[in-house]
């Protein structure tokens, strides 16, 4: 059987690796997306004091440490059954919202967005931030750097460090902010709202105003009817910091809403022997392999998923953008009653709507009269036992579950990490792209483009497993004939 290996720059770098097998007719028989890295946090966190989990689990991912930091602090709250003061929760959410702004900015302008802004057919060397600058103008580069710098500054003010923050602990935060710091954050928050609006306008002009791009978004290659999950507030609006998880069927029916402590009733993880990463699926539907539809437990947890799983956005500008999103892409509800966008490339648009929401949420939080209150920590009074917490990481629903002894020393740990949620859908998108572009043993260069775009829309932070920056998957396709000889070698940055 013929084999095509799509590797990162090399198999020797521990990034993702894709093996495509062809049948005798040269058509795709199967595709395997392997994750060749493991560190074992669930094992070696055992024995550590639970209050250290916010800084220990930071090190799972240096791209999204804030997600682990906040999830760990909340799970430790749950272990001690302690309710942090209101200001502490607001500070955590403010830090977390600033993180969303910087993270989504990086993705749209440097990683995923250039496909649209510069164009999917432009040479790979131009589809980057420099290409965006060339197309949109010099000052866009400055705006992007300022958005990232400003929001990293917010993370540092509240959390202590720009990367791997330190201030969230069980019961709240280790320190409050003063008025001077609050004013600095408010300025950055308001600039971020303007930047979010600017980014959506840019998307409007360049993507929605261009028929070729609209066709690409609405085409079949990136269309998957799967389940979607996302964290919801009490009004069933998107929330990143807290709430319950809504589960939406491909037919637009919300089949359930689960509290963090109930996650095992809903989510299970499948193990394959050819990869280090597990495949989460909806337990109530069941693992049916790498397939979509209402009978397959495969689900997605992305910006698009969160919009699909929710009834709307909790801030006015983002809500207006949300309405426009569905009016444009899915004006009619599915049979289950909810409008659903299954076109995966629309994830880029959804990400910008979330960016605007995060910025608006920053303004709400930083202008709250209690945000500078010195009351930022509650002392636990209950015996520590067990606790679960969930936050929405930018790349998917993040679950931390801890068990401790009576001293608060960990005895067991379970983690279901952001991108991991999307391992099965990413694998399916890769196979679909391979099937579309490999026929009779011939591989089109377009395969790389399609695989690349399939990766980028999920913003895969396999940093948690493979340490690639989101969307930065250097790919190499090695095509071998039946004797294993290399007949072609295509390479592209992804």
């Amino acid at each position, binding site marked *: 059987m013929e084999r095509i290996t799509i590797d*990162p*720059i090399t198999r020797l770098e521990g990034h993702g690796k894709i093996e495509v097998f062809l049948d005798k007719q040269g058509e795709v028989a199967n595709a395997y997306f392997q994750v060749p890295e493991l560190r074992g946090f669930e094992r070696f966190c055992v024995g550590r004091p639970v209050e250290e989990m916010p800084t220990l689990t930071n090190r799972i991912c240096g791209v999204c440490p804030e997600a682990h930091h906040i999830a760990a602090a909340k799970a430790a709250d749950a272990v001690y059954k302690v309710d942090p003061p209101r200001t502490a929760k607001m500070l955590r959410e403010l830090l977390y919202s600033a993180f969303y702004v910087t993270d989504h900015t990086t993705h749209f302008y440097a990683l995923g967005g250039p496909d649209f802004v510069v164009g999917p057919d432009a040479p790979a060397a131009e589809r980057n931030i420099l290409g965006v600058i060339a197309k949109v103008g010099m000052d866009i580069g400055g705006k992007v750097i300022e958005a990232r710098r400003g929001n990293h500054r917010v993370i540092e003010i509240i959390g202590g460090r720009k*990367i*791997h923050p330190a201030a969230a602990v069980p019961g709240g935060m280790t320190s409050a902010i003063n008025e001077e710091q609050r004013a600095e954050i408010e300025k950055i928050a308001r600039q971020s709202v303007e930047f979010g609006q600017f980014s959506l306008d840019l998307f409007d002009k360049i993507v929605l105003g261009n028929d070729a791009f609209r066709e690409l978004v609405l085409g079949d290659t990136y269309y998957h009817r799967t389940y979607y999950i996302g964290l919801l507030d009490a009004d069933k609006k998107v929330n990143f910091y807290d709430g319950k998880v809504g589960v939406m069927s491909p037919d637009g029916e919300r089949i359930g809403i689960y509290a963090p402590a109930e996650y095992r009733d809903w989510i299970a993880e499948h193990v394959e*022997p050819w990869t280090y990463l597990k495949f989460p699926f909806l337990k109530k539907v069941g693992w049916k392999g790498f397939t979509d539809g209402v009978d397959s437990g495969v689900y997605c947890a992305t910006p698009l998923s969160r919009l699909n799983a929710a009834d709307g956005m909790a801030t006015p500008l983002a809500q207006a953008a949300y309405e426009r999103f569905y009016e444009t892409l899915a004006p009619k509800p599915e049979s289950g009653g909810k409008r659903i966008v299954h076109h995966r490339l629309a994830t880029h648009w959804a990400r910008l709507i979330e960016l605007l929401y995060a910025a608006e949420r920053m303004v709400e939080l930083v202008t709250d009269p209690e945000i500078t209150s010195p009351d930022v920590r509650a002392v636990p009074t209950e015996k520590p036992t067990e606790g679960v917490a969930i936050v929405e990481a930018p790349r998917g629903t993040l679950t931390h579950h801890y068990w401790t002894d009576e001293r608060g020393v960990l005895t067991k740990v379970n983690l279901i990490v952001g991108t991991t949620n999307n391992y099965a859908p990413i694998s399916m998108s890769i196979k679909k792209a391979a099937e579309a572009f490999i026929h009779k043993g011939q591989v089109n260069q377009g395969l790389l483009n399609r695989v690349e775009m399939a990766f980028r829309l999920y913003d895969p932070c396999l940093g948690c497993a493979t*340490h690639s920056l989101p969307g930065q998957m250097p790919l190499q396709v090695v095509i071998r004939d039946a004797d294993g000889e290399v007949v072609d070698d295509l390479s592209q940055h992804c």
Partner: protein
Amino acid sequence: MSPTAKPAAKPKLAIFGAGSCGGCDVAIANIYEHIVEVGDAFEIVLWPTIMDGKYADIEALADGDITIALINGSMRTEETVHLAKLLRRKSKLMVAFGSCASEGCIPGLANLSSRREIFDTVYATDSTDNPDGVRPTWEYKAPEGTLHLPEFEPQLRTLEQVVDVDYVIPGCPPESEQIWAVLQAVVAALNGTGPLPPKGSVLGAGTSTVCDECDRKRDVKRIDRFVRITDQAAFDPEICLLEQGLPCNGPATRSGCGALCPAVGAPCIGCYGAAEGVVDYGARLMSAYASVISADKTDEIDTILDGIVDPAGQFYRFSLATSLLRGGRSAWKNGGEE
């Protein structure tokens, strides 16, 4: 310049992350607009997380052709070990960049467990549906052909435990201002306007301890017990955290971060590694703690030290892989399997 004259070749820079979280790469990217100056000063031949480049291109280079290689991340699979050796051969200067590469970092705590224990935990968690006890295998015969996974080695190793290292840049991750300062110094040295530091130097950090750059006041107060952060709603914002009973790693940890964590009321966790001249990080920290303990008898000292609920983590949180505890050959039976 005549039309045929070649412009002077730029020095070549390689940046590579082995088993890492990506934070070191983000820290480099967070020098913001200076990244353009790095691009002007160097030909970046490898930086997989940020730009395209092929492993085969590195193999094709002459030995020693790369001027400087910054390697972050730890060595846990046969692939990363292989690439570290290759880059060592191709590079004049090799830098262990960040805590993973220089001392093993938090993932080094995995060396407290055997490979089997790690697998038996990860692939059998509460939410894992794995009735047949499936484990990843290095070679798996799928129906369509054989799939290979790089072997998860019995123990995590640091860069220095695999290849010869010229410099260390500590930190988890190194602070971006420090990274930029090091890069500027390297460029100056390459331009002949400054000296290259001697081999073995620790770059981008100070020579004293985190305590020396911490603004908190020390009044040589002794403690009669250790407390945990969950014991009190607040700690004095101006007094040394250790003197308030919180186990802070400042006294053993190298300066260079700016004491950021104590500034927001969180104890130093030791991510900048051992201070200058310290042979064993944990031993130094233990002696620092002993010096603040108010006790005369051994059993009193023991009682106070019992307040440290996780000694292995407290004293070797970032440096277990290079410590005397788990620094050498595998301590496990059967080549680390059990």
